[in-house]
């Protein structure tokens, strides 16, 4: 019964999201586009954190690479948008394979340090490699051409772009969800709770962690690829550890225990950020305080706490 109510709510939410360009102003279209993209970014992070139990502080490396890849392909090759996104996913998957290979062998403390360090290494490369990335100025001046697959869309129109993002994020979310619900996903959850027992059941835990890491990286790259045309620039900030902190906070805000938690977290995060940056520049300070409070008092997150309570209490 309760699952039906939740499904109903979800359907209403999706219908609402589709209808937004006809019922709300451009402001909301922009905000929601950002929420969706960052939500995907956070959901990809949650695959490795909430499900597999690996805390990475360098997830922005894959997001940023995705942005740069799309920007570079648009600038130099002018391929259709879908092709750019595929390149973004491929590039970030490859980077995740390299970084993951070096990092998943080690325990969680090392893993956290390493992902932070490698993330900053990618940042340093993007910052320095002026000839390719245009350094601290970032890449700009790319425009979206065609969408691909013969579908004719005016991607420059924010409402159109919003719907494109909505569809792509929805599909990506469904794919991620299926992965989480599969036997593979069940093993990931088991790895978070007791990696030793999983290895004694005959599985090479490192391999599973690496695969999860690569999948997460590629979806982060997809999100990054969606972000570049939205921001109209691909800059090193997207690779900095402060960007890596965002999916962490979103996942914790929304709740790492439920698939939609990161999306809820993204919405709350973006709305909070928009509101707070309107009267202060110290958004990072507020972010830090919120993260601290959430970790200490509301570890399950907003959606997590709410759903846990509702599902347990009203049995």
């Amino acid at each position: 019964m309760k699952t039906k109510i939740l499904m109903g709510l979800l359907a209403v939410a999706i219908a609402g999201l589709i209808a937004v360009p006809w019922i709300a102003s451009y402001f909301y279209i922009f905000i929601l586009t950002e929420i969706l993209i960052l939500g995907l970014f956070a959901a990809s992070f949650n695959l490795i954190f909430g499900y597999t139990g690996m805390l990475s502080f360098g997830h922005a490396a894959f997001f940023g690479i995705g942005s740069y890849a799309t920007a570079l392909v648009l600038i130099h090759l002018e391929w259709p948008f879908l092709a750019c996104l595929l390149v973004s996913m491929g590039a970030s998957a490859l980077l995740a394979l390299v970084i993951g290979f070096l990092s998943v062998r080690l325990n969680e403390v090392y893993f956290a340090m390493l992902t932070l360090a490698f993330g900053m290494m990618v940042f340093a490369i993007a910052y320095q490699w002026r000839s390719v990335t245009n350094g601290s100025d970032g890449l700009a001046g790319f425009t979206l051409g065609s969408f691909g697959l013969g579908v004719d869309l005016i991607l420059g129109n924010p409402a159109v772009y919003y719907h494109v993002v909505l569809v792509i994020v929805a599909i990506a979310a469904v794919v991620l969800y299926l992965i989480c619900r599969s036997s593979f996903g069940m093993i990931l959850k088991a790895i978070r709770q007791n990696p030793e027992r999983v290895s004694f059941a005959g599985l090479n835990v490192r391999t599973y962690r690496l695969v999860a890491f690569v999948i997460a990286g590629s979806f982060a790259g997809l999100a990054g690829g969606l972000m570049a045309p939205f921001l109209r620039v691909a800059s090193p900030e997207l690779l900095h550890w402060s960007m890596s902190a965002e999916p962490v906070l979103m996942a914790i805000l929304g709740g790492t225990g439920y698939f939609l938690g990161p999306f809820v977290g993204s919405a709350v995060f973006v709305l909070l950020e928009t509101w707070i940056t309107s009267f202060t520049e110290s958004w990072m300070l507020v972010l830090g305080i919120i993260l601290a409070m959430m970790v200490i008092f509301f570890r399950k997150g907003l959606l997590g706490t709410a759903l846990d309570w509702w599902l347990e209490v009203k049995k």
Partner: protein
Amino acid sequence: MSGIGAALLNSLDIGLLLFIIAVGLNIVFGVLNIINFAHGALYMLGAYLAFTLINLVGMPFWAALLLAPIGVAILAVIIDRLLLRFIYSRDVADSLLLTFAILLIINESVRVIWGSGIHVVQPPQLLSGSMELLGSSVSTYSLFVIVVGLLLLAGLWYLFNRTRVGRIMRAAALDRDMAEALCINTRMVVTGVFAFGAWLAAVGGVVAAPMRALDPGMGDKIIIESFIVVVIGGLGSFPGALLGAIVLGLIHGFGGRYLPEVNLLLPFLGMALVLLFKPNGIMGKGATA
């Protein structure tokens, strides 16, 4: 000859400074099993506090060297009692998350209090200028850094191997439950160790202040360097921290001189190489999952 000599001295200078900072990180990890992500921010606070004491209050450098780290240590005690104590009994991930949050808070607070601009701390009269050594002229202050580094190295070695406090810390690092059973007040040890780590970071900050311009990004740079040091040397190993720091110092000293284009990347490459062949670090153990 003079080129190599200068590079060597530079390496030693950078290396020992890194050691001072990384060893605090290492000690906190050894006893508390957490990486304090805010460690670099505490280093930065030490530098900025020294700046305030020297430039705004008018104290001599030596007074700042004494007082600023104590101030940061007190702050660390507050952080521990107010925030970290909720987390110690939980998953390691929660500690990492919380110290990361503290990093964000301190970083931004520094920006708010002191501004985003660059500040400069002058070295004290006694230590400014340069001397002739190994065929090249070397800043006196660099030599001072080396001396301080060596003194701290000796002091820490003595602390861990010859004193009761050191033995308690080592015991607590090896087995928390056993240490508690033997009536060592681990609550106090935990707070004390955390404060001590912060003190060391701040000393590093004060010592580094006259050498570098102060900006709100200095904490970030140093924490990455510290991570590289402990990964190369091995987490939880005191000699490892020294080895890692010297290696990184050499990379900076020689890389900066002879390979300036890729200088930024060399430390990461060094770290990646160590990880490929010795994931525990050169002297560490128990890092693998």
